[in-house]
């Protein structure tokens, strides 16, 4: 039984007097996919930010990745694709990716940028400023940015929102592919169907706490929806 790649014990995050995450225990094995579901304000985004190392826990234990405990080496192994795109509107798509590559110490930033642009089907607009992108294009560029350093652990915060059905299914496909390539995914989403389809493990967050779900029978979306409604009300 290998060590879990992501381990949390009694994880807490406080913002002033508000406890956004409370007493959370979590284990994610390498190569598996965790879907985090829950109502708005449950703390999904906060959890992902904690896992990425952007935010520091207020209490509890959190170990992510294979490197030492410090958050700096964690950032090497983790890619975050969040609500905010982290893109500079005044820079072109290509420049944004080259910047991200250089920030993450990727060799041959320009080549990597071109490769990612092609993968996300953005090569046509490579030289267009990111400020002029549509929501869907922004999303795809932001995904490319998150993948720039080929992280072993990928954190996605509602990646399907803003995508048309074709882009959604293509992204789901690619995420499914990543699973078979032994990447670890943590996916926060409202899309219960996708969650059921992609996840090996499901975490239901309500008001910062983990709520137990009955054991899953296969990848049944309808069952998941039922359980969700029962738990959340």
């Amino acid at each position, binding site marked *: 039984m290998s060590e879990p790649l992501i381990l949390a014990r009694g994880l807490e995050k406080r913002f002033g007097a508000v406890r956004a995450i409370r007493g959370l225990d979590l284990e994610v094995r390498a190569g598996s996919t965790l879907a985090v579901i829950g109502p708005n304000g449950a703390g999904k985004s906060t959890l992902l930010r904690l896992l990425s190392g952007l935010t520091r826990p207020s209490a509890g234990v959190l170990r992510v990745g294979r490197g030492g405990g410090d958050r700096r080496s964690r950032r090497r192994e983790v890619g975050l694709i969040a609500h905010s795109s982290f893109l500079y509107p005044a820079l072109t798509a290509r420049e944004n990716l080259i910047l991200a590559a250089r920030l993450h110490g990727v060799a041959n930033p320009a080549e990597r940028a071109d490769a990612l642009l092609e993968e996300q089907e953005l090569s046509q607009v490579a030289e267009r400023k990111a400020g002029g992108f549509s929501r869907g294009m922004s999303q795809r560029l932001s995904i490319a940015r998150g993948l720039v350093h080929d992280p072993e652990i990928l954190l996605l915060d509602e990646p399907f929102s803003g995508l048309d059905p074709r882009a959604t299914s293509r992204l789901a496909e690619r995420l499914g592919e990543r699973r078979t390539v032994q990447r670890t995914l943590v996916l926060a989403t409202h899309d219960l169907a996708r969650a059921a389809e992609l996840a090996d493990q499901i975490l239901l967050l309500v008001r910062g706490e983990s709520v137990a779900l009955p054991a899953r029978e296969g990848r049944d979306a309808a069952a998941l929806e039922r359980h969700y409604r029962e738990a*959340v009300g």
Partner: protein
Amino acid sequence: MPLSPPDRVIPTLHRATAIALSACAIAYGYLVVNAPVDSEQGVVQKILYLHVPCAMAAYLGFLLTAIGGGLYLWKREERFDRFAASAAEVGAFFCALVLVTGPIWGKGTWGSWWSWDLRLTVTLLLFLVYLSYLLLRSFTEGGDRKARFAAIYGIAGLLVIPLNYFAIDLAGGRSIHPENLEGGSLGAGMALPFAAGILTAIVAFSHLLLGRIDIARLRAQLAERDAEREMRGGGDCA
């Protein structure tokens, strides 16, 4: 709601310092009133017995603010931030006293309220740093962020004090501060009131600091209790 032992320490110390302060203040007041009147400067000179101890408290305050901030950045424990913030408020108060008593002495002795004297100017700058520190705290949202930002500013502000001293000295801040005039030695019968003043200032500072920390601590507990209640209460109605 019984208070746990740590919760009792601060209020107890606060009360203890109140008693100590009363004793010190009485002794101090007596010594100042009975101190010899300076032949050159007259009765006005006695305000220095207040001015100098307050100055020490003001600088001590900022040192504590910076230390508290540094400890917070290291350990991330809220109590260090509360300590830093309280020290800043109390220190700012003493700093204001310095800036009020200084000109009074100046007017009484030189006839001018402000003369860009080196030490007074550096203290004025310290006061401005205090104010900016307090404003930074009130305009930053989020407990951890506020504490971090304040800690950084507190440490930067502390380091700049010696730099300011050299800078204003360079720019020709006039050295008409009393010590420089009299060649640095206190006249006879002045040592005791000064010592009493310094002791009283330290006790007064501690008393006010402990009181302020206590208030901050209680506020934090209250806020947490409110936040919990809100979260629980809201959920049941979903």
